[in-house]
């Protein structure tokens, strides 16, 4: 039986090198690979190109890597909530490529589906379309957008087994399966690691073929950005 289990985040990310392109799962701070982000900060790799829907907040998530100036370029759809990001962007220290959220998700999906590109109407007539090939289908204009190639993909799941099969929980699924599918090497950190066979095959959200390394993470903070409760 294939066993993809590694000891911890430090071992999982040991061969990520400066200058690589790394994708990270999560939406805001929901479903982010906290253990691997901490390990990347500790390892100190830099000049990374980071693909992720968001860039964390100043003192959590990808924001921790921004503080250490580990990123050369950020590819994301929304980067509010992060003053350090804005500072590095306006000062020219950080390159940024802002792309529509659905385009980002689908370019990752395309990579995992073995398709080199997609056509999407998102961004037609906007600055996103500049320099891009377009094509008309049924009289509607679409942009050609290429699939992502990630040297490493790092994702967070709720549950996983020793063969890398993953189950996500609620809205923390978001970009995680898509980032996972786009990685040449994919690392999954999970809250609970179980033996292969423990998860009903019908309940698996992402099959382990897309996952190369898996470990059970620890000390999840799961920080909430906008804690909102019902009015009494």
């Amino acid at each position, binding site marked *: 039986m294939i066993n993809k289990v590694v000891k911890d985040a430090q071992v999982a990310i040991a061969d990520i090198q400066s200058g690589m392109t790394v994708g990270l799962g999560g939406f805001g701070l929901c479903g982010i690979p906290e253990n691997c982000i901490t390990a990347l900060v500790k390892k100190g790799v830099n000049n990374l190109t980071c693909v992720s829907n968001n860039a964390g907040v100043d003192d959590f998530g990808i924001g921790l890597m921004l503080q250490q100036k580990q990123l050369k370029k950020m590819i994301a759809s929304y*980067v509010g909530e992060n003053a350090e990001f804005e500072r590095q962007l306006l000062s020219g220290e950080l390159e940024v490529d802002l792309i529509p959220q659905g385009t980002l998700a*689908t370019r990752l999906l395309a990579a995992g589906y073995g398709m080199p590109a997609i056509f999407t109407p998102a961004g037609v007539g906007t*600055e996103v379309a500049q320099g891009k090939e377009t094509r008309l289908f049924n009289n509607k204009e679409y942009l050609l957008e290429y699939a992502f190639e990630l040297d490493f993909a790092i994702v967070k799941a709720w549950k996983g087994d020793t063969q890398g099969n993953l189950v996500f929980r609620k809205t923390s699924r978001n970009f995680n399966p898509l980032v996972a599918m786009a990685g040449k090497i994919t690392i999954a950190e999970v809250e609970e690691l179980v033996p292969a066979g423990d998860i009903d095959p019908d309940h698996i959200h992402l099959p382990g073929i897309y996952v190369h390394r898996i470990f059970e993470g620890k000390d999840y903070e*799961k920080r909430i950005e906008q804690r909102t409760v019902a009015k009494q």
Partner: protein
Amino acid sequence: MKSLSHHLIIKLSHHQINMLDKNQIAKRIAQELQDGFYVNLGIGIPTLVANYIPQGVNVVLQSENGLLGIGPFPQEEDIDADLINAGKQTITTVAGSAFFDSAMSFGMIRAGKVDLTILGAMEVADNGDIANWKIPGKMVKGMGGAMDLVASAKNIIVAMQHVNKAGESKLLAQCSLPITGLKCVKKVVTELGVFDITPQGFKCIEYAPGVSLDYIKEKTLGRLVIADDVREMVVG
């Protein structure tokens, strides 16, 4: 000092009019909801629409981070970090909810499965162009899902203030800010009235209680026509 006092006068004159507040705008938009609709609500005034869904109208709210069936905000003890909306607020689910990944979420949006999209805007042009994602040199937060939504939605209603903080019209002949999408907005609801986007430009079909059509004309820079059967808005 001169510009400040000028600014104040504009503000004051605008406030003398009996304008709708954000909740009343949301309440008016809620009247557009039809039984069986799948609806995506943007951040800001659109989120408030969820509070005014008419009785007997069943709609399913989509959150583009991967949920159909947004429920109310949770009680303190039910807060779950793994359950948030697209504005990153903690939420709950309702009976019949479903979770999915971000590609499927935008897949259903792109495929036109979502019946109605309600979103905010900085500017709308009289041909339906919308700008709501960027202020060059000032705001660099990104477009999030806005460009995907406006490029594919069948029906887009914009909820926004009629004028900006400087008293300038946000209903224009042409957007001055970077475009989010072209010719996509179908209807605009502001504190002054309800406007359909037509080949003739903004068509005022309703005015807010106490707001004159002359005032609306004064505050609208894009082409404006008044519907023959224009009437006072009913906000309940």
